[in-house]
């Protein structure tokens, strides 16, 4: 063992990076108020006030931009800042007078301020064509196109009834945890994996067979060498086999695209957490602006903004008005793909005589 080499030290202790006002009032905050879009104040038992300015970011950041954030933190926040779970950056101020100047500086850098309270926050998303082999669509490009269209709901220009969270994952691995979002954008494959020659040289056949949740993969001999064959009628395009075996590529320009899901939430407020449910089964990839995705997302957002009661999240709203009305209001066509046919699918059927006419 090299004694010079440090390992297993873990991350630096977060206490090193807390601003003094937080150290002094740690665990002693009394209440908070949203002062304007993207700006809130937390008031401590001691009477101290901490102002937070939250700005949207593309998540994919070059070091040049991070250095700019550091400059802003030095200029206004005694050198302190943090990031949020949704990729936003937050500047922590003690002097109320600095709020407007830092917002102006952020605007000059191209970063909108918002995403707090009843608002659309940044889209949690994944790598896409920028850096992943598994992607059925791009991530950053779709997010950029959707947020260009929805920024009015981020920066508070248009008021909305409650929180709305959007997430994107470019394949069913879902590195972006989209299954519980008000609106989820999910990349999907629609063509079964193609078995490449020499599969047995790169992959363990029993592993590949075991990887398939529907048992669609069987051992086979191809031109005298061991390989596998796919029962295409059993494949639901999860790409799990490809995850364990690179010789089973899934990506396909003609058949890959995007699906939209709605009505999930993770917070416990009012309603228990819920999964997102299928709204639009498939939209073709249409770079660079994914116009049809953007239009569908906007339509869903607008229906909710028009119809939801105060605090009501997408899923609560749809539960109240019913799915038939959701499809009617959004104009999204209901198709057989909307009806679950995987395990225990019957639990999602309408098992009562409650019908709105």
């Amino acid at each position, binding site marked *: 063992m090299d004694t010079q080499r440090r390992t297993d030290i873990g991350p630096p202790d977060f206490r090193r990076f807390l601003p003094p006002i937080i150290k002094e009032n740690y665990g002693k905050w009394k209440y908070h108020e949203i002062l304007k879009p993207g700006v809130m104040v937390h008031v401590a038992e001691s009477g101290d006030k901490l102002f937070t300015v939250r700005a949207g970011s593309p998540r994919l950041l070059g070091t040049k931009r991070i250095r700019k954030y550091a400059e802003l933190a030095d200029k206004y926040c005694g050198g302190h800042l943090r990031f949020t779970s949704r990729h936003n950056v937050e500047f922590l101020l003690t002097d109320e007078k600095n709020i407007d100047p830092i917002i102006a500086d952020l605007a000059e850098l191209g970063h909108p301020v918002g995403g707090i309270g009843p608002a659309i926050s940044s889209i949690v998303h994944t790598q896409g064509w920028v*850096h992943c082999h598994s992607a059925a669509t791009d991530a950053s*490009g779709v997010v950029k196109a959707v947020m260009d269209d929805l920024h009015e709901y981020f920066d508070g220009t248009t008021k909305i009834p409650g929180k709305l969270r959007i997430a994107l994952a470019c394949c069913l691995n879902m590195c972006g945890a989209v299954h519980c979002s008000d609106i989820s954008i999910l990349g999907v494959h629609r063509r079964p994996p193609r078995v490449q020659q020499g599969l047995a040289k790169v992959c363990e056949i029993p592993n590949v067979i075991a990887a398939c949740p529907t048992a669609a993969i069987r051992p086979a001999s191809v031109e005298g060498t061991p390989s596998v064959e796919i029962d295409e009628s059993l494949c639901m395009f999860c790409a799990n086999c490809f995850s364990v075996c690179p010789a089973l590529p899934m990506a396909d320009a003609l058949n*890959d695209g995007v699906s939209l899901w709605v009505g999930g939430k993770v917070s416990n407020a009012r309603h228990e957490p819920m999964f997102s449910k299928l709204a639009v089964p498939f939209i073709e990839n249409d770079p660079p602006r994914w116009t049809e995705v953007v239009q569908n997302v906007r339509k869903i957002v607008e229906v909710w903004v028009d119809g939801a009661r105060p*605090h009501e999240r997408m899923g609560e709203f749809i539960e109240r008005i019913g799915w038939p009305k959701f499809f009617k209001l959004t104009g999204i066509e209901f198709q057989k793909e909307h009806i679950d046919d995987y395990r225990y699918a019957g639990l999602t059927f309408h098992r009562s005589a409650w019908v709105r006419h």
Partner: protein
Amino acid sequence: MSETNGKGSATPMLDELEKGEWPSFVTQIKEMAAEKEQCQQLLELLERSYREKIGHWKHGGIVGVHGYGGGVIGRYNDLPEEFPAIAHFHTLRVNMPSGWFYTSDVLRKICDIWDEHGSGLTNMHGSTGDIILLGTTTDELEPTFKALTENDFDLGGSGSDVRTPSACVGPARCEWACYDTLDLCNDLTQTFQDELHRPAFPYKFKFKCSGCPNDCVASIARSDMSIIGTWRDDIRIDQDAVREYAENGVNIERDICGNCPTKCMEWDGHDLEIDNGNCVKCMHCINAMPKALRPGVDTGATILLGAKAPIVQGAQLSSVIVPFMKLEPPYDEIKDLAERIWDFWSENGKNRERVGEIMQRVGMGNFLEAIGVDPIPEMIAYPRENPYVFYEEYYEEEDEEAEQEEEEGAAVP
């Protein structure tokens, strides 16, 4: 590898994504491309994906730093001859400080390291929470690691290990934090460094710490062990402040009481009354009137288990395993619970089977027995609806006779 031939841009489709209100990732890559050939080639490769509607990255081979089994994701493009600068373009996951707090100095330090050793591109942050350093060559991995550790940073998890734990902002800036999310997250991360760096599990295991049921890190959807703050005593009420909300136009009857999931609140126009024994701690009323209502003071957390994305057997949300646990250093109770779960799972789990999946495969009841936790009604939404019960034992006639004899025997003094 410019395809411009001197006329026009090499990346017309990406250029389109520099327009519009939202900050552009293309601008970020371009800013770095001025100095880094890697970033220029990444732009051109991505433009090609936009044209062809298909990705150009291959499965990672096994790359890493000495002694670690995770923390680096190998990336190779499938057109290495055309895009040699990014033929290897590996990612490092760097464990962030709990709560994603930084000083400007430490951020600049990370930038210096990454400018020297990699592409200069990052994700702040990945969806698990790590600082993602996006793109470098195999040769640079060990030097990057050395520079990081010299500056007190270390790699996060990847592969079949404990993944980098994450936490909401908690007591640092939220009045609702029911335990110290940042301290617990940091403590779990430090305690389980070996489990984090050397994959030895059937698959990944995630901890996420949210300070209250608003669950700002989505732990119930995204972590194998979801640690969600809650309280056991009464919601603290400031009746004057409630009246102030009412005077300022909040419709307390409709928007507060009407939205309470258990209908345990009453407003008579003067006082707000809460039947705390029926409050499920959903946070709605507190969210809506933060100046008037606060969680109680007997605080701790609900521990839930088993969330995961769809791969392999379908997605799951976490479900209750311990309705209330006090969480104070040194956090032995929760660490002990995690280790009992890992023991059972490591021994019995199939390759790529998450904890949420093994719970279902072996049956929740059997799983509870194996980890030494008693079944309680808080764990279920409702009891089973089907009568297909797997009883493990039954009596045979001889048993009954033996038992009877025993009883008779016992009756004789």
